[in-house]
């Protein structure tokens, strides 16, 4: 198909809009998430006249970017967005920063006023490249149609190579209308941007030497393993199993190592497990692969894993020694690094101190005995943890390919704690920016990419309202996304901090005047379900899953449940707060900690 397309296109000069579409096709794009407006009408006209690329009309530009993120994260491809100038572009900014923080490859095409009007405060003009400069990995303003095709190709290269991220291409309307030449993606290397992917052999040897000598090792794997592709997760599994080490994942890394594997300690960090955090605190050698020592993970920096040698493998040199000084730095792609580690581990003669490792595991088993994620489901009031756990168990029974997205808050953390992921790319959440309103549009993007899969947005009643308009998109494209609301009638995460840090003064965190979610679903041509009693939970979940179209399941859960374990801001890993009734360290929040978010 592309061959005939090309001979056709070579024969005629194309206008800018056609050039953009041709470049997208050549880059393998199948879907665009967008919203029209004056400045991009030429592009919409070109979209109208072709069938190779499908356009999904969202209801808000922020949602277009989150949808592209969900599409990208669940497929490993680049997500593509198209918005108009001015308000279209500014509405997209939250999504762009979200993609930047979580290293998601996205191309966002923005309309712009014609070049001769730029700077004149023209109608719907915004300084899009200025506004999005710190919101993107890179951005372009195309002022010369001769460079249009090459700019689009370069944008894809930049978005997906090295540490992935969002790229904006600002397209003045005269460029979209003008005629120009088309050029294919260049085969030559980029002039200046050539990230390193192959690890240094000496550093790999140094890492293996440290790891072989370790008595209390731990592997801490993050989103970079997912970014690298499924092969990296496979190799992570191989390496962890061959070395017998415990492994923990960040929020962004969930699915990189199978949750059901006995060597998995669960998530680490602020709401991570007791065993994962104490293993991080007590280890003597730490291997960080594709994680960025985020403050949600390290807690108080000067108390973070105080007695360990640290190895950090990351594709972005700026992630290394940013927050935590490490002993061995490896720059490279996670899959390449892991392949090299597996090989070097086999070759390195020295054996491990098996006895020491066995002792380390006994200590870890001791921490596991705390059963930090245990909760008691008693009576009719549904515990939010229980709702997620049952959702997990029931979807597992169904053996259908399942993808989970979340909004932001307590429900997000409960989803991370109680929904198990055994494979990468099945879990999409807003980690770095923590954007309420991410989950529904992200689920949309996932469902577009995987039409036959089960896609569930685990939501909070407050977050879901931030992009609720996308129920319209679900209806239009018959996307059977399930929205599973843990409705505690509070901005629960805010309420929890107010309870623990601000004397239970629940300032503005009550979800007043909520809509009737069943009627709301109905108004958007979806099915609405409300479950209020624990006895009815399973039936409600099954009813949701059985429905072939989109569903909002409004699950009334305990209003004042807190999410534990919790390392309060400014505290150390060994100062974790556990759920009431569980033994363990109890921390006070210092004034210093209160300053932190």
């Amino acid at each position, binding site marked *: 198909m592309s061959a005939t397309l090309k001979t056709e296109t070579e024969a005629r000069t194309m206008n800018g809009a056609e050039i953009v579409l041709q470049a997208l096709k050549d880059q393998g794009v199948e879907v665009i998430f967008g919203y029209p407006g004056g400045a991009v009408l030429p592009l919409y006209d070109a979209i109208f006249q072709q069938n190779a690329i499908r356009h999904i009309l969202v209801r808000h530009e922020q949602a277009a970017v989150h949808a592209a993120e969900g599409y990208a994260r669940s497929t490993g491809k680049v997500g593509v967005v198209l918005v108009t100038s001015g308000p279209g572009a500014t509405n997209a900014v939250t999504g762009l920063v979200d993609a930047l923080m979580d290293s998601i490859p996205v191309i966002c095409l923005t309309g712009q006023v014609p070049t001769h009007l730029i700077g004149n405060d023209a109608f719907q003009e915004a300084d899009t490249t200025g506004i999005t*400069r710190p919101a993107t*990995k890179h951005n372009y303003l195309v002022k010369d149609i001769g460079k249009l095709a090459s700019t689009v190709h370069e944008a894809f290269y930049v978005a997906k190579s090295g540490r992935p991220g969002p790229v904006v291409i600002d397209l003045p309307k005269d460029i979209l209308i003008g005629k120009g030449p088309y050029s294919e993606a260049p085969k030559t290397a980029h002039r*200046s941007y050539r990230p390193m992917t192959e690890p240094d052999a000496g550093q790999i040897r140094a890492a293996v030497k440290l790891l072989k000598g370790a008595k209390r090792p731990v592997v801490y794997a993050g989103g970079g393993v997912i970014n690298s592709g499924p092969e990296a997760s496979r190799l992570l599994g191989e390496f962890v199993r061959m070395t017998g080490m415990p492994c923990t994942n960040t929020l962004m890394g969930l699915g990189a190592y199978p949750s059901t594997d006995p060597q998995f300690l669960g998530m680490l960090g602020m709401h991570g497990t007791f065993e994962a955090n104490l293993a991080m605190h007590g280890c003597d050698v730490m291997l960080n692969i594709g994680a960025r020592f985020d*403050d949600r993970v390290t807690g108080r*920096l000067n108390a973070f894993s105080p007695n360990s040698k640290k190895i950090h493998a990351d594709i972005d040199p*700026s992630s290394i020694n940013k927050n*935590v000084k490490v002993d061995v730095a490896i720059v490279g792609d996670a899959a390449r690094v892991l392949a090299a580690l597996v090989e070097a581990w086999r070759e390195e003669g020295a054996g491990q101190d098996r006895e020491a490792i066995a002792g380390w595991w006994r200590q870890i088993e001791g921490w596991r005995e705390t059963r930090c994620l245990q909760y008691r489901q008693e009576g009719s009031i549904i515990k939010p943890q229980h709702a997620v756990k049952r959702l997990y168990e029931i979807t597992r029974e169904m053996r259908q390919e399942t993808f989970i997205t979340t909004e932001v808050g307590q429900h997000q953390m409960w989803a991370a704690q109680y929904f198990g992921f055994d494979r990468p790319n099945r879990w999409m959440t807003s980690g770095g920016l923590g954007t309420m309103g991410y989950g529904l549009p992200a689920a949309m993007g996932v469902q577009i990419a995987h039409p036959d899969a089960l896609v569930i947005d685990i939501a909070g009643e407050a977050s879901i309202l931030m992009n609720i308009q996308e129920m319209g998109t679900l209806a239009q494209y018959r996307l059977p996304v399930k929205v599973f609301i843990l409705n505690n009638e509070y901005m629960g995460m805010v309420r929890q901090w107010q309870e623990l840090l601000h004397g239970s003064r629940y300032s503005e965190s009550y979800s007043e005047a909520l809509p009737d979610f069943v009627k709301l679903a109905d108004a958007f041509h979806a099915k609405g379900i409300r479950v209020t009693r624990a006895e009815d939970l399973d039936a409600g979940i099954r009813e949701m899953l059985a429905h072939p179209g989109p569903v909002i399941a409004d699950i009334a859960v305990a209003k004042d449940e807190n999410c534990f374990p919790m390392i309060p801001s400014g505290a150390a890993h060994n100062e974790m707060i556990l759920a009431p009734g569980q033994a363990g360290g109890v921390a006070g929040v210092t004034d210093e900690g209160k300053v932190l978010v």
Partner: protein
Amino acid sequence: MPASTDTTFRNATIAVLVENEAGILARVVGLFSGRGYNIESLTVAPVDEARRLSRITIVTSGTDMVIEQIKAQLDRLVPVHKVSDLTLEGPHLAREMMLIKVAGRGEHRMEALRLADAFRARVVDATTESFVFEMTGAGEKLDAFIELMRPIGLTEVSRTGVVAIARGPGGLQA
């Protein structure tokens, strides 16, 4: 936030070879302001028209960890070709140029001229009641000259900021 153990500050003169394109300076400056790094001086000019390259010289200060961060952050900007920490990489030359205007009559004029001569500043403009001197040198030398001119009739100073280059045969290549 840098680890609290690493608190000794150092200065760094960093040379950056970049694509000569719109927005590159905004990217670099935005990086410094957005991440809270110091800029003591920043200069930029095209150095290779044919290959569309510009060179930026930045003088900054911070802990070792912060300076390493600055270099890594600069290096990952897409239009950046090369980043070189001249302070760390060996002996280098750093120069700044200044135009400085001094107004006055009589003995003050003579004093200004004598000092300018001692500092090897050139007279590039003169009226009966003023001089403009041009002077090149290390920043401290320029500072010293300004201080001397202050009581004599300093009117205006314009400085370029630091440009720097490594000593020896090696060069910064794209």
